[in-house]
């Protein structure tokens, strides 16, 4: 009888201690979350301990919500047009925590007025290439010529006449320059990738792959998480991605 009671005592005290510990931990977490959230997002990496706290919290958030598309290794998938998040090459912005956080919150081409949704890659082989405004269709020969021009940046030989036509089309009828820039350097505000480097979001940079993109267009979507993740989870996952990416070279 007495033995039963003393066991009961141990259980009661143990439970009370556990509850207090959990509560304490929650309060502590909440305090850290709050401290992490109060910072302007780009100030987070400057605060080593809060940054480490955020990064460790972000790992699981990424695994549960982002890895399905971006891959557990964050390397993306060129077959489905998911960009590598670990390289220096950003389609949108330059990889600051503030920028990643906005994408985590509102996505890319998702249903929110703050989503990234300024432009798409038109489908030049379709009757109406672009939903946003009128752009002329390109003939197969024209697409081939433009792909020849882009191929030069990939180290491929080009027949001079085709190259000349390709350059002209890039700068005029195709309106490629308008989004990708005259130098093919891309536009990180609208998410138009650099076409002159060897980093490809979609396909492998072969001529065939490039023609396919020009003909079929491309409208990549990253979902919004504002309604499904807490502000702290969003901040944490942004910090986690930031921590995995190669930092940009210091401005010259």
């Amino acid at each position: 009888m007495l033995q039963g009671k003393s066991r009961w005592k141990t259980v009661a005290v143990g439970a009370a201690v556990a509850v207090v510990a959990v509560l304490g931990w929650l309060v502590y977490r909440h305090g850290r979350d709050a401290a992490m959230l109060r910072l302007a997002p780009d100030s987070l990496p400057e605060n080593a301990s809060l940054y480490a706290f955020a990064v460790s919290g972000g790992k699981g958030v990424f695994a549960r919500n982002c890895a399905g598309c971006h891959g557990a290794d964050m390397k993306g998938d060129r077959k489905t047009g998911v960009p590598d998040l670990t390289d220096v090459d950003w389609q949108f912005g330059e990889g600051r925590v503030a920028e990643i956080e906005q994408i985590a919150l509102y996505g890319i081409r998702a249903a929110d007025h703050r989503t990234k949704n300024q432009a798409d890659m038109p489908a030049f082989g379709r009757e109406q290439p672009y939903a946003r405004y009128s752009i002329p269709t390109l003939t197969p020969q024209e697409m081939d010529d433009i792909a020849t021009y882009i191929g030069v940046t990939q180290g491929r030989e080009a027949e001079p006449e085709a190259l000349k036509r390709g350059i002209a089309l890039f700068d005029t009828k195709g309106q490629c320059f308008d989004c990708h820039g005259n130098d093919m350097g891309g536009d990180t505000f609208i998410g138009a990738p650099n076409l002159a480097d060897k980093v490809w979001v979609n396909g492998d940079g072969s001529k065939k792959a490039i023609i396919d993109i020009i003909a079929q267009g491309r409208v990549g979507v990253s979902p919004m998480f504002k309604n499904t993740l807490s502000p702290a989870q969003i901040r944490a996952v942004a910090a986690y991605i930031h921590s995995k990416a190669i930092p940009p070279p210091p401005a010259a």
Partner: protein
Amino acid sequence: MAKSPSSTPAKPAGTPPAKTVKDLFAWSEHPHRTLIIGAIGAIVGLGMAGFGLFTAEGTRVRSVPPEAVAVVNGRPVLISDFVAQVEAEMGVKYSEANAAQRKMVLEEMISEELFVQRGLEIDEPSVDPDVRSALVSAVQTQVAVDAITKSPTDDELRTFYEAHKASYSSMGLMTVKDLVAPRGTDPTTAMNNARAAAAALRAGQAVEAVGARYNMKDSGKVMGEELYFAAQIHLGDALFAQAVKLKPGEVSDPVLQADGPHVLVTVTNTTPQARTFEDARIAVMTDFKQALQNQMQVNEDKFLRVRADILIAKAFQ
């Protein structure tokens, strides 16, 4: 908690007084066991309730949550959005924006929130056609978001591809020369010329020579190699229907159109070829999502109707 006997009230007779801390924890015998456990329970409960109260969404009344710069009638303006807005409007990094710039943007964001809230208050959506259509498309997009963001598996895509195989073919291409009698030519003469031209072309004579000899000129409708759909638009349905049937080198019979008789010579004609799954992957993915999206919108409409109370007057049923 009571640590010495003096601070505990009188005990019922027969209970030995607790003398030491150890005695106090002779739990089963402790006279205030119920009270103490009750107190612990109450404190823990209050703690949990308090924690819940101060951390739950939507319960903050008079304080600004850590993720917000401001709260407007209970709606937070997120720091993240504020920073993004400052950068977008001022064209500088947030850390480089000065206090006046930040203040200005914050005031603007508060104003916008107020106007949006006011708009809902005066039921703007039921008044303004732009707001109405924006709302409709917003709901449609919202419904479709699951479809857009779903990453279909390879199997799903393959099944979709198999079901719609016919639409995954390479692009049909043609190069065609289209000769027409000049405007104003007497219709009978024109038709005779066209027949003679067709015969000469079939006999292998050059297009330019035949055109000159039988007074027919290039219609200028098509230029070089074109995708089928482009050629169809340029030629018109009737001429395209003839052209698409011709093999390279073949010549059509004269086709009478409003602008006179046409003769078509097909130079190249690449009919669409079925594409393999791997080859058509991007297109399959796009179409798969589009189909799913349409389906979800239809389902949403059904769901709303089931839920709704709709009465239609007899005369209009």
